[in-house]
């Protein structure tokens, strides 16, 4: 018995050491490291680069620990990134609450745009303060991050085209089985996006008026420290709303399903699956992956931001050719940053492999 067990253990341990020759391939490696930890991983030399969202890109840039090899907006101009999603049954049973949340989202976006357009104003200072407190970074990092992303609630044709591109890519990569489309009742990727993106709530939201009373509670999930979701942070600020949050101003009391936020979009989609969240701010890729792979009954009701991610590398790396044989960290296969990495690797003729050790 022991001999069998010992052979199995040794065999398993040896399996990782054996593999095909990589001599003729141009390989770039990847490993999953959370954006908040990528800066230190690059500094330590554990990896040579990372793909991250804001404020972590700007944090590395201003800290001098990395340089941007390429911005996501240069690869996919105006690509969608984070979105506002809602539990579909909640949206159908409480359309009024969804519209009120979206009204606060719209107002927060407008407030941010106005504050950002007036440097030196009190609201500009407040904007940076709110961002710095939420992301645990300083004002300079927040200001730099603001310049690298576009906060926008609107969903246009380009937004839908971006989501189609993500879904197509996931199907091509095998991360979503083609059969899942029909299993969820969609005839094609186009049909999926047309139904998964529901703009009706956003269209009606602008006419929502402030409310003197709280109409209802909404369990609103979000990602930890992610400035792509700045509108939610601003909408929760009582100074911006004149003594109440913007959500309260429009009649909604938000409840935090996980105080401090979720570490990734997968966590938020799992919260939707477990009926622990009614609405949430998360990346569009996990919203697509979970809906198609596991049938989590959600819809996308607004955009949170476009662009705002980048491949950041050790300052010694000057171009993509220098990445040969090097390792790049991504937040994980369900992230838009991972897709970006796969895209640029393919464009530059790299074979992507998991970093061996």
């Amino acid at each position: 018995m022991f001999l069998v067990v010992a052979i199995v253990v040794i065999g398993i341990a040896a399996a990782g050491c054996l593999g095909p020759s990589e001599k003729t391939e141009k390989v770039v490696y990847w490993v999953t490291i959370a954006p908040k930890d990528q800066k230190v991983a690059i500094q330590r030399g554990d990896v040579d680069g990372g793909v991250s969202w804001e404020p972590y890109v700007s944090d590395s840039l201003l800290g001098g620990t990395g340089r941007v090899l390429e911005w996501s907006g240069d690869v996919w101009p105006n690509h969608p990134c984070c979105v506002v999603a809602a539990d579909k049954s909640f949206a159908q049973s409480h359309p009024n609450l969804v519209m009120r949340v979206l009204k606060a989202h719209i107002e927060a976006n407008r407030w941010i745009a106005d504050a950002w357009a007036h440097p030196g104003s009190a609201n500009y200072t407040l904007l940076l303060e709110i961002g710095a407190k939420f992301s645990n970074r300083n004002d300079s990092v927040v200001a730099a991050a603001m310049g690298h992303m576009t906060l926008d609630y609107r969903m246009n044709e380009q937004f839908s085209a971006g989501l189609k591109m993500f879904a197509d890519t996931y199907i091509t990569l095998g991360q979503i089985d083609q059969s899942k489309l029909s299993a969820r009742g969609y005839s094609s990727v186009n049909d999926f996006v047309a139904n998964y993106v529901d703009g009706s709530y956003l269209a009606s939201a602008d006419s929502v008026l402030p409310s003197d009373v709280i109409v209802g509670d909404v369990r609103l999930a979000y990602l930890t420290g992610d400035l792509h979701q700045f509108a939610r942070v601003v909408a929760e600020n009582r100074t911006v709303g004149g003594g109440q949050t913007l959500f309260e101003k429009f009649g909604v009391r938000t409840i935090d399903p996980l105080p401090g936020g979720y570490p990734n979009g997968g966590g938020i989609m799992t919260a939707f699956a477990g009926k622990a969240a009614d609405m949430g701010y998360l990346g569009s890729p996990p919203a697509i992956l979970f809906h198609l792979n596991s049938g989590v009954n959600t819809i996308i009701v607004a955009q949170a931001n476009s662009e705002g991610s980048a491949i950041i590398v050790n300052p010694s790396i000057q171009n993509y050719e220098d990445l040969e044989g090097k390792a790049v960290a991504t937040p994980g296969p369900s992230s838009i940053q991972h897709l970006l990495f796969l895209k640029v690797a393919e464009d530059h003729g790299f074979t992507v492999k998991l970093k061996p050790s």
Partner: protein
Amino acid sequence: MKSNAFDRLRKLLSRDSERGLMKSAAIVFVSLVVFVLVWWALSSIFPSEYFPSPYKVGVALVDSFQNPDPNTGVTMWQHMSKSLVRFLWGFALAFVIALPLGLLMGFSNIVENFGRPIVEVFRPIPPMAWAPFFFVIVGVYWGPVMPVLLGVFFPVLSNVVFGVKSVDPLLLDVAKTQGADRLTLFKKVILPSAIPYLMTGIRIGLGIGWMCIVAAEMIVAFGGGVGLYISVMSQVGKWDYMFAGMVVIAALGILTVEISGYIERRVSKWMGMK
């Protein structure tokens, strides 16, 4: 010699022994069947997307070994090998530190009084709470190993200390009256007495160690790991594959406990305990 072996074999195959083995095997079989049936029943009650049936998980398990998963690009074999290597490192380091420290703490009141407050401060802290810290301090290779080290360390340490303190005073007195010095006392009486407790600590530590490796690999795992696999599958909503990863962890846990059981039997036999 031949006769002894024959006698042992005959004893092993004696009717009582055979009946006992058959009974045990039957109970294990029934237990597994009940487990699978309950799983099947629950998967039909809960949404099957999130609670896949044993069949779905089985299909995913086979696929994970046969084909590289599209997310990480490697097969379950590589994930298992990486996890196993990390686990063995963590276990070995914990063992090397905890055994002598536990013997010393059990043997010497001064060392115990010095070490216990520190141990008691750190013991209640879940090893996973340290994972981000270890990642930053010791890097991506040793980062996932360290929570395993902690997970194994405290059960081994506590059991060894307890084992040393549980030595029958009569044995100590007899050894002393026979003129045994402190070193002989330690080598001939205390150390052997602590072995069964050490083995208990190892068995407990093995279980905790696997819990730690999975969680640690969710933070970083060069080359893959079953923890990473489970994490990735949960992030992309492939629950049947996530369950397949959990089955693999269970199998690896059983594998390592079997090994420790074998070692325990050999050591006990060597020491004349059985």
